[in-house]
């Protein structure tokens, strides 16, 4: 078929996808009129406040709520002594993305499993009364010895008995890594440590339960999956799904912390059902530190290369913290077997049990941690061999996934290296550490590669075309700041030849077509493809109806791909003079709209041959005042290959966010635990530093061209995680280049640079 060059009105629709459209919900967000979970009201709303355990391990000997209960305004106090009955079996408590083990049950019994565990729940007429009464609850504990040091507990590490669903265990070893390592002319064996990190989205976790009478609930929950929350409360409280509707229309960030339901959902729902009244519970910032975290991890990488810098052996071992009650797992070490060509690889992964809350996925879980070690190691080795760090990586480029012996759907990483290096000015780099200066400051240029798996999950969506040409697309998907609403509008607009502003997007509602939780960078690819498929189904129905019309201009053989919708008419794409008005087609069938649902799922056949990854090359400049030890990341250039970019504006923001969080991981973020008590010491935003305006200088994002027709039906690979993977290593590598000091323990704070330097001297 010859395609006519599109001109005039046709151009508008063509530009919808790939156009840097501003977020469609933007005007609501900037005026404070977009309501988040704790911002829904009702006249008789009760407010909750949670009392938290002040030991990390042990049991509650006595809990005295008398004074608290007498506090004016208090309606009821719940503890393990009087908690209403719930489902007994673990299976009822398992959410969609639950882990091997026993899900945490708030107020279940007298056991304390982690610091900050909820131990009592106060419900009162006002927030202030609930808060102040909670302070009057007196609890006596019998404390056990806490176990919170990953260095200590990793001595007793174990291979998880049950594998976490969706998390690939390490591949079996290939070649003979130990022998190759022993024989190599260049090699290193290094240990890497990551202290725990906390997600800290700006919005506090919150749930508003509106009691609608007769056991019917409308719930506004801070979650990355409204249907996951709905299933969770229905399971635990034995409610009928049709009586529980969960919304998460606006989510003030989550970064993985909202994948699994949190205790505020349970407590607020429990109280609303018990008291038959609406209940709101907004957690405190302190509580956010106990919900979940990026687990503390210790890793060892042994890496060897020949005289040409070709990798001859990689051995990567990681031990991550998990809780006493669940075996949380990440893909940490597998990246080391697939990012570069290497024929002798041994990867191992274990867990260490600690008295902590179960860790959870935090932006690029596993990869952010594992690739830090891998990319630090290859950098270190490049200096040994005497190669430029970028050259070292290019020499070890690989076009397949050696772990699984699969082809890649695409890998435009060479383009990332080239374009990133060029924009950064990498060729002006002086190789030797401590060789670059800016006035009194040491300057360091470092780089690293990033990788993340591009996944597609099952997703369903609905599209509706009305006679007036307006379009509605809907799916239960969430927009946690990712731009989901906007790209779905763009996909709908492109399919129906209208401007995005004529598309209504409905998401964040458990009643809408089924999607999985919003995470893993899969939403754009999955829900986006489902919306595109639903739109195609609508257009098929429309075309069929048009063909049925008397004197239809469409022949029997015309396919939906050969048609387009232009200016309210269904037309032949090659000749838009041939067509029928939508109103006439609908009228011919007595319809006011056409609506279809469609589902996408991973292609099992394709998965036997292909696997899909996104890639990035990060280039980082640091400036270090050596006298004060102050480290500033003054420039970042990140080049990303992630398939088709639906919206360069929101896409760029996803990468910026990943880079900023990566800088935090590299330099600032650290949950500090007092290992004598097992308690988190810095549970607030003053002492747990997340990057602030002053920390973030220039960041440039490049999207390299990458065509991929297999990663997802719409060619999208996803962007939520790739921005962070490798950033911490790039920063650490730049610090090494500036100072000659290699720090392998995150975060790289002033003291560590000093100590490492002293130790080296």
């Amino acid at each position, binding site marked *: 078929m010859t395609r006519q060059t599109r001109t005039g009105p046709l151009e508008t629709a063509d530009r919808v996808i790939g156009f840097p459209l501003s*977020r469609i919900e933007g005007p609501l967000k*900037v*005026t404070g009129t977009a309501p*988040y979970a704790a911002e829904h009201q009702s006249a008789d709303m009760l407010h909750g406040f949670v009392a938290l355990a002040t030991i990390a391990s042990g049991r509650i000997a006595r809990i005295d709520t008398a004074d608290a209960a007498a506090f004016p305004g208090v309606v009821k106090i719940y503890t393990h002594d009087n908690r209403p009955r719930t489902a007994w079996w673990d299976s009822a408590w398992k959410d969609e993305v639950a882990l091997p083990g026993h899900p945490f049950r708030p107020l279940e019994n007298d056991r304390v499993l982690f610091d900050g565990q909820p131990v009592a729940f106060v419900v009162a007429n006002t927030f202030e009364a609930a808060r102040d009464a909670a302070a009057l609850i007196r609890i006596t504990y019998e404390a056990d010895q806490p176990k919170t040091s990953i260095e200590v507990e990793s001595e007793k590490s174990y291979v998880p008995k049950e594998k976490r669903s969706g998390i690939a265990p390490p591949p079996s070893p290939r070649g003979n890594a130990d022998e190759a390592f022993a024989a190599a002319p260049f090699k290193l064996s290094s240990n890497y440590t990551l202290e725990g990190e906390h997600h800290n989205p*700006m919005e506090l976790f919150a749930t508003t339960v509106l009691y609608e009478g007769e056991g019917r609930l409308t719930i506004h929950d801070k979650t990355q999956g409204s249907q996951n929350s709905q299933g969770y409360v229905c399971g635990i409280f034995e409610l009928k799904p049709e009586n529980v509707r969960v919304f998460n229309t606006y989510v003030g960030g989550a970064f993985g912390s909202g994948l699994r339901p949190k205790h505020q959902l349970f407590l607020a729902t429990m109280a609303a059902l018990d008291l038959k009244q609406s209940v709101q519970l907004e957690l405190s910032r302190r509580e956010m530190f106990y919900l979940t975290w990026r687990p503390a991890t210790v890793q060892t990488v042994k890496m060897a290369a020949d005289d040409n810098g070709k990798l001859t052996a990689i051995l990567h071992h990681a031990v991550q913290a998990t809780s006493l009650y669940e075996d949380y797992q990440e893909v940490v070490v597998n990246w080391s077997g697939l990012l570069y060509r290497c024929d002798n690889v041994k990867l191992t992964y274990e867990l260490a049990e600690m008295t902590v809350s179960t860790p959870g996925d935090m932006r690029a879980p596993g990869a952010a941690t594992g690739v830090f070690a891998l990319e630090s190691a290859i950098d270190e080795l490049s200096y040994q061999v005497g190669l430029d760090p970028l050259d070292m990586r290019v020499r070890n480029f690989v076009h397949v996934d050696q772990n699984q012996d699969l082809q890649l759907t695409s890998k435009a990483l060479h383009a990332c290296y080239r374009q990133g290096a060029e924009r950064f000015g990498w060729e002006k780099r002086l190789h030797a550490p401590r060789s670059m200066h800016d006035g009194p400051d040491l300057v360091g240029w470092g780089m690293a590669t990033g990788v993340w798996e591009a996944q597609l999950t099952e997703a369903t969506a609905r599209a509706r075309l009305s006679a007036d040409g307006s379009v509605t697309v809907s799916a239960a998907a969430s927009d946690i*700041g990712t731009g989901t609403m906007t790209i779905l509008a763009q996909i709908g607009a492109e399919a129906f030849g209208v401007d995005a502003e004529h598309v209504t997007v409905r998401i964040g509602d458990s009643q809408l077509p089924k999607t999985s939780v919003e995470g893993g960078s899969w939403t754009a690819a999955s829900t986006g493809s489902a919306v595109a498929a639903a739109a195609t189904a609508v257009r098929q129905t429309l075309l069929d109806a048009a063909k049925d019309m008397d004197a239809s201009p469409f022949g029997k053989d015309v396919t939906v791909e050969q048609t387009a919708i232009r200016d309210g008419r269904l037309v032949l794409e090659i000749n838009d003079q041939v067509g029928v008005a939508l109103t006439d087609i609908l009228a011919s069938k007595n319809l006011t709209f056409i609506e279809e649902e469609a589902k996408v799922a991973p292609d099992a056949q394709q998965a036997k041959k292909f696997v899909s990854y996104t890639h990035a090359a990060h280039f980082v400049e640091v400036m270090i005042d050596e006298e004060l030890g102050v480290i500033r990341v003054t420039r970042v250039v990140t080049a990303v290959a992630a398939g088709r970019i639906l919206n360069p504006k929101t896409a760029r*923001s996803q990468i*910026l966010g990943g880079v900023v969080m990566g800088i935090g991981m590299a330099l600032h973020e650290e949950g500090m635990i007092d290992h004598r008590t097992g308690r988190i010491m810095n549970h*607030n935003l003053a002492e747990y530093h997340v990057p602030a305006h002053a920390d973030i200088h220039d960041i440039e994002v490049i999207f390299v061209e990458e065509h991929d027709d297999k990663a997802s039906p719409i060619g999208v690979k996803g962007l939520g995680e790739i921005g962070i993977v490798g950033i911490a290593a790039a920063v650490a590598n730049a610090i090494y280049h500036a100072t000659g000091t290699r720090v392998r323990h995150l975060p790289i704070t002033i003291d560590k640079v000093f100590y490492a330097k002293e130790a080296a001297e």
Partner: protein
Amino acid sequence: MDLGPARAPSPTIPVTLTVNGRRQQLELAPFVTLLDLLRGDLALTGTKKGCDHGQCGACTVLVNGVRINSCLKFAVSLDGAEITTIEGLGTPDNLHPLQKAFVEHDAYQCGYCTPGQICSAAGLLSEGHAHSREEIRELMSGNLCRCGAYTNIADAIEEVMAADSETTVREAAE
């Protein structure tokens, strides 16, 4: 508005506040923060709670034109004050220049820190201390954005600052 009984046990104190141009007589318990008053009884939920400890800036509002963390102020201490929240700066159909610039520059993602960032930026512009991007970054550092929209926020503020100073220069010339 009588908020007395619901706020028991504490005696209430009469306070007059002008919020977004509307004068209101309130009876408030002494321990109610301006932030909780705004988000709760006044239903102005555009002002966000991110920490309740003066550590994040999400609750930034303008009190008599000066930016403050509303979680750190008891409402009763502000008798007679003029308070401007994000809702008072502009509406979806009539955006303030800063709000428009935030949309244009994608100076947010989840949007939760955004009202605080914008109120803080409005305060920053009227203070007149920031003259460079570096100073914007320094003087906006009380407003955290976990989504990491900082560079875009700086772009948005810089643009409005430049437009402001152009207007000032033009006005001075006229």
